[in-house]
């Protein structure tokens, strides 16, 4: 108790000392950092979305001229017609932004930072300093990426996977020049950011839980962030390695990925002995876990939001954790399903096919568990709940097509077709974006102390949900008919003509979807300043973050950190009047008989850890002999 009191004092006077810079710019408070991630993510998301609208215009009306394109893009859209190289650049940067900047940093960065300390009962992250660095590396990375769009020769344009030799040879494509260098720089900075964040999340989860918060009382959000961080920590370094080799090939004359190349205007290159396919192995060793890095936080958020708003315990808490664990493990050994037709050994293809289809099982379990959680619930449809239900819908529709793509034989026809675009936009794009929206609507009161407008949220949800399906569902059919992705224009092939009306439908729907996001933007920024003041626990939720005061303070809790008495999903207990039972409220009468898994677990006796006990600085101090 005495230490806690001390800390309170410390935080109080610390608060006064903070300058604008240290409070809002180089802040070390996890809540502020989380907002920095969120705002940057939203800005990048808008950029990515606008890019997709620009290239969708080209696909729907390839013969039309759009004055606005020329105004916006100058020499890349002479006479209002998009340049093919720049089209590829837009697609590449769109994919990069969406995958890494919005759905990795924007989603996981925001909510891991916000929720790990708040839901576990910690005053901050294990290392607030590294946390701040993580954000600023991310910021620098975003700046470099955006600068790369403006360079003379155009941005990186070999697709977000930037396969060499295309990305390695400056002469192969204009975007493979300076644009590609900047892309690699941006990604390297991004990886640093992501590693700094990941180490921090893991150590916080392992070391800094409050009294009584045993691992099996952690909300599923935290479990999801935890596994996500582990995945990132193990896979991002491999991407860094791949990128480094690529940098070497580009600038220092090595041949990791190059062999037997003759380039128009240059002649036969010296490079021999490298393998372009090696890059693909390295890339997808990150790339596949990456899709789960994107998806798992969204699934965690959904578990929390669905349970809260169904007023019902999440069904199969343990099964959810086991399937997360299974997915995490398996995601490291399925990367080859992106490479069935690269010419790798057919037997290897078979192995990857089997492993890939195994991963469908834990995913199916998750979907069934969500459905059962809804069953006989008492569902309150606030925007967060709607977006979570939307996520479940996309997760199912998009996940099922994975069964086609994971099958090596079926992939012969489907690889790199629009079927793939449909698949990953549903299961990874739409589902994860919906998880992100669910999280924003749900935790907005925690971030800003105000409520977002619900009605606007409903409009935002239904418009986005319907248009997302209109955009991505028809793409399945295009893919099945053999329409390749990453094509600048389809009118040069007679057979693709029948898809022109579909292309128009998709573009129009995408534009409507874009406008629907304006509703969100308005709602978000308006509510920050003018939204209704929030109550302390506006959704009557069980988890710890709602025990903190509405006005967000440094150190999170003014007094002692609450103790945790039970699991996070005790909704609608028959023996209670209210339909929720927060984790931090002590039992007056009945002990924990009602949750059989929990009965044996006495609150852990572990010393309560506080923000100052940064394991990392302790370690560094020891290493450098400071104490």
């Amino acid at each position, binding site marked *: 108790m005495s230490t806690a009191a001390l800390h309170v004092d410390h935080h109080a006077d610390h608060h006064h000392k903070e300058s604008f810079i240290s409070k809002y710019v180089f802040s070390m408070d996890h809540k502020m950092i989380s907002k920095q991630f969120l705002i940057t993510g939203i800005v990048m998301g808008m950029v990515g979305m606008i890019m997709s609208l620009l290239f969708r215009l080209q696909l729907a009306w390839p013969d039309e001229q759009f004055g606005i394109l020329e105004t916006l893009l100058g020499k890349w859209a002479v006479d209002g017609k998009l340049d093919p190289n720049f089209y590829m650049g837009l697609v590449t940067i769109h994919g990069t932004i969406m995958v890494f900047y919005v759905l990795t940093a924007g989603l996981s960065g925001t909510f891991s930072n916000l929720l790990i300390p708040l839901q576990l009962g910690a005053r901050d992250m294990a290392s607030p300093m590294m946390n701040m660095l993580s954000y600023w590396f991310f910021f620098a990375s975003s700046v470099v990426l955006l600068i790369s769009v403006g360079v003379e020769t155009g941005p990186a344009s070999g697709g977000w996977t930037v396969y060499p030799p295309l990305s390695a040879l400056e002469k192969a494509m204009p975007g493979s020049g300076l644009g590609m260098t900047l892309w690699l720089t941006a990604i390297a900075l991004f990886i640093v950011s992501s590693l700094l964040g990941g180490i921090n999340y893991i150590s916080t989860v392992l070391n800094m839980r409050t009294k009584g918060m045993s691992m099996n009382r952690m909300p599923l959000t935290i479990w999801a962030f935890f596994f996500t961080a582990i995945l990132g920590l193990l896979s991002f370094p491999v991407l860094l390695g791949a990128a480094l080799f690529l940098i070497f090939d580009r600038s220092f004359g090595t041949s990791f990925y190059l062999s037997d190349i003759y380039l128009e205007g240059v002649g036969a290159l010296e490079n021999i002995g490298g393998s372009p396919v090696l890059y693909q192995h390295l890339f997808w060793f990150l790339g596949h876990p990456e899709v789960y890095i994107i998806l798992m936080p969204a699934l965690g958020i959904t578990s929390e939001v669905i349970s809260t708003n169904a007023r019902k315990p999440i069904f199969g808490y343990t099964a959810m954790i086991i399937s997360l664990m299974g997915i995490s493990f398996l995601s490291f050994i399925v990367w080859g399903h992106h490479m069935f037709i690269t010419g790798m050994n057919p037997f290897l293809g078979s192995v990857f096919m089997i492993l890939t289809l195994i991963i469908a099982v834990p995913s199916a379990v998750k979907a069934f568990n969500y459905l059962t959680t809804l069953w006989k619930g008492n569902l309150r449809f606030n925007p967060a709940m709607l977006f979570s239900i939307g996520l479940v819908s996309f997760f199912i529709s998009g996940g099922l097509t994975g069964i086609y793509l994971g099958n090596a034989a079926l992939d012969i026809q489907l690889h790199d077709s629009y079927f793939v675009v449909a698949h990953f936009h549903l299961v990874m794009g739409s589902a994860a974006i919906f998880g992100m929206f669910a999280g924003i609507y749900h935790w907005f009161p925690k971030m800003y102390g105000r409520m977002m407008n619900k009605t606007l949220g409903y409009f935002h949800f239904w418009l986005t949900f319907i248009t997302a399906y209109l955009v991505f569902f*028809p793409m399945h059919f295009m893919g099945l008919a053999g329409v390749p992705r990453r094509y600048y224009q389809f009118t040069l092939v007679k*057979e693709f003509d029948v898809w022109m009306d579909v292309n128009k439908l998709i573009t129009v729907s995408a534009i409507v979807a874009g406008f629907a996001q304006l509703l969100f933007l308005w709602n978000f920024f308006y509510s920050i300043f003018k939204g209704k003041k929030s109550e302390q626990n506006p959704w009557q939720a069980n988890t710890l973050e709602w025990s903190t005061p509405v006005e967000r303070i440094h150190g999170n809790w003014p007094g002692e950190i609450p103790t945790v008495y039970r699991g996070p999903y005790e909704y609608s207990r028959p023996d209670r009047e209210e339909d929720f039972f927060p984790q931090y409220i002590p039992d007056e009468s009945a002990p924990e008989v009602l949750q059989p898994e929990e009965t044996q677990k006495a609150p852990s006796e572990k010393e309560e850890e506080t923000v100052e006990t940064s394991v990392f600085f302790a370690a560094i101090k020891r290493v450098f002999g400071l104490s």
Partner: protein
Amino acid sequence: MKFNTLRVLNNSLIKKTLVLLFTVLTPLFALAASDVIEPPKEFSISNFDWVSIFTVVLILLMILVIARAFDIGSLTEKLTGKTIVSWNNVNAYVGIIVLILGMIGVWYELNYHGKYLKLGNSASEHGSTYDSMFYWTFGFTFFVFVVTEVLLFYFMFKYRYNENRKALYYFHNNKLEVIWTIVPTIVLTFLVLRGFNTWSKITTDIPKDSQEIEVFAYQFGWKARYAGEDKELGNTNFNFISGTNPLGVAEDGAIKELIVELEGEVAKLKVKQATAADSIKVWKAKYDRMVSTGLNRTYPEDFKAVKDQYNDAISGAYERQLEKDIKRKKTALSRIAEYRKDKDFFNGKASDDKITTELVLVKNKPYVFKFRARDVIHSAYMPDFRVQMNCVPGMPTQFAFTPTMTTEQAREIKGNKEFDYYLYCNKICGGAHYNMKIKVTVVESEAEYLTWLATQAPFVAPALPAAPATPSTTDSATTTTTPTVALK
């Protein structure tokens, strides 16, 4: 408390360092950007599409009105204490409506666009196995799709909030969970086994008598190489590629030409190297003159070229590039010399090979396509035949298949007199990736094919010493002729 020192350290020292770093870095970024970002095109009002601007403004206004309206709505609700609209129910109903409309949409799509799908009329032998497996997968996934989506929205409707009800306090049910782990496992096992068999058959069952055709990919087109009289393809190497030998086949005459050409280029480069100092002086003078006379502002385009040249010269990039080019060409020469020593490599089998700009295949005859790529990764994609394989520089790949439907038959089935099979590029490979294709024609009989083959020139024409092959830069799609149809 002992950690507080560390905190102070964090706050003051490290933060200050960071602030410093960023204050230094930001102008650097800006500097880098100013040089790098092209100046914005002059703003011109006529470039704006006024209708779209107007629409945007209108919609923004609408958003404001909506937000206002519902704020007032909720206020009245609070004041009167009565619920005017139960948004919870509205959402539940909208959910059901969306579900029904959505399912109708799915059904419509299946019927309407389903007919354009390539499934069910594959033009190759393994294609029908493929299609049947597709239907099994489709049947299973579509069933699950409908059931789960219907349940999702049905639950949403059925269990919408009711004050008088309490949700079921229900944590888990082991039996249920085991069931829905086991059932998907069984279904997936079935699909995996089928997939495994089909995949193995497609990739490893190659009939002995298959005809080999080399399919060669480059930015941005395709070439095919058929064996000549000797029924065997000659060897190739990327070092042999030249304007007259686009595929780099090992044919002595062509290689000799290439050696002469390369040696000539090396000599020219050496001259350039020797006179580099003079050239640099000239370029400097040119640059200075343009700057001093103000011509750089009158002719910015020209000046840019002059400036680039000047920059390359003074930074030494020009000379480094010369050196690099010489080294590369010398390496090529020495490699070629090495290969020429190997008489087995230059076995003369390449001389009668025929390099064509379209593919002609015979129905029911097994083929092995051997893929090569010249510059970057491409992918040979023939959706009608359920064929796809990447073409990777430095790594030969192959795909074996047997066409079962002639072009004529396909035209009849599709009711489209103009239909043709194509092989598309399906791996992003540069700016013209979307227009990299080669026509594939399947003919009924060997005779038709042989007639066509006879019209194609061999690499070395029997009479002439070195016949010029088609230059490698032309797009195969545009230069394609259609002899098979003419044959009829």
